[in-house]
């Protein structure tokens, strides 16, 4: 899922300055799971904004809405009336959600309430960690399903650096050494021989470094 965090309230207030009819719209998929942009966070943000506007003596009407998915056109029409009512829309979706809304409603002003961070997983309640860099050339099969490109601070593909201590990365004692995880997992799976294979340097042309990527499936087009 896409993991994000809400921007500081002061920054959001700057972004929506001048609004008189503000629509706060969330997304109930990824950013709801990471407690950044679901309907609860919409209610939270709207409450904070209402208080901030009243403190500032600004008469701003705030409406709340949430979509199942902000990144899929089929859902975006559900907020058509609210978007038409608003003079500014504050999106609690990820960066893709904000842009999808803006494409769908080209005449409206959209601003982001979140800082989109990474593709990650819910490690435990309240903890989200980065697991995937979206490199476009997945090599997890070589590494016991632990991605060194994402989870090794140095993105090393052929073994650990010399900075690993007690299973932790020298960059931070809070960060697991990805190569320790890879070794432990392959050992547990009796697949340590996989580490004998040389893994070529990553082909970053398949990543965003190559260009903004588009996938086209003709069989799914209408």
């Amino acid at each position, binding site marked *: 899922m896409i993991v994000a965090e809400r921007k500081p*309230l002061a920054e959001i207030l700057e972004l929506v300055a001048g609004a008189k009819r503000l629509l706060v719209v969330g997304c109930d998929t990824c950013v709801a799971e990471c407690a950044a942009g679901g309907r*609860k966070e919409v*209610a*939270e943000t*709207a*409450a*904070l904004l209402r*208080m901030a506007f*009243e*403190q500032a003596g600004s008469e701003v009407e705030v409406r709340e809405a949430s979509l199942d998915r902000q990144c899929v056109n089929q859902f975006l029409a559900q907020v058509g009336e609210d978007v038409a009512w608003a003079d500014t829309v504050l999106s609690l979706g990820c960066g893709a959600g904000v842009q999808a809304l803006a494409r769908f409603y080209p005449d409206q002003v959209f601003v982001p309430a979140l800082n989109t961070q990474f593709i990650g997983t819910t490690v435990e309640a309240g903890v989200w960690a980065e697991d995937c860099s979206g490199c476009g050339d997945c090599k997890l099969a070589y590494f016991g399903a632990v991605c060194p490109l994402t989870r090794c601070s140095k993105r090393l593909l052929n073994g650990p650096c010399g900075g690993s201590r007690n299973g932790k990365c020298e960059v931070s004692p809070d960060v697991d050494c990805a190569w320790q995880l890879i070794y432990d997992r392959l050992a547990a799976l009796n697949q340590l021989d996989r580490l004998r294979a040389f893994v070529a340097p990553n082909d970053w042309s398949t990543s965003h470094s190559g260009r903004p990527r588009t996938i086209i499936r003709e069989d799914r087009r209408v």
Partner: protein
Amino acid sequence: MARHMSKQGEHIVVRFCHNQAGFMNLLKAGPKALPAGVDLAPLPCSGKVEPHQILSFFAAGADGALIQACPLGACRFVEGNRRAAKRAAYAAERLSELGLDPARVRFRYAEAGSNEDPESIIQEFIKSIRALGPTGLTGGRRGGGKAK
């Protein structure tokens, strides 16, 4: 949220786990048994409270919010009261973003084995909120809904 709201004095929201018998008895005694300006309501568990609800109380004009939970280790849902404590702390932090004193949100565990007096707990909270003064927020309520 509008229940029992007076047009004078502090506006206080109190939410409690319905297993808190003293608070439930106070609720059953009716509005006249409550201090003016207190909105008292039960929850199936204190863990039902969410930060956005607490913040909405303040956006609607509350001056303080008190969450009363079961004693530590005595939640029938095991973790509900501990989760409520964290959520109340989170909501209090968000109030700080607006320059409001986080002490306007108070979470308290009931003391195990004691017969706490809910009226005195609420009165003490009202006193602490009175010391902070009104938030200056009316939540759009008209007619002088806030203490000056």
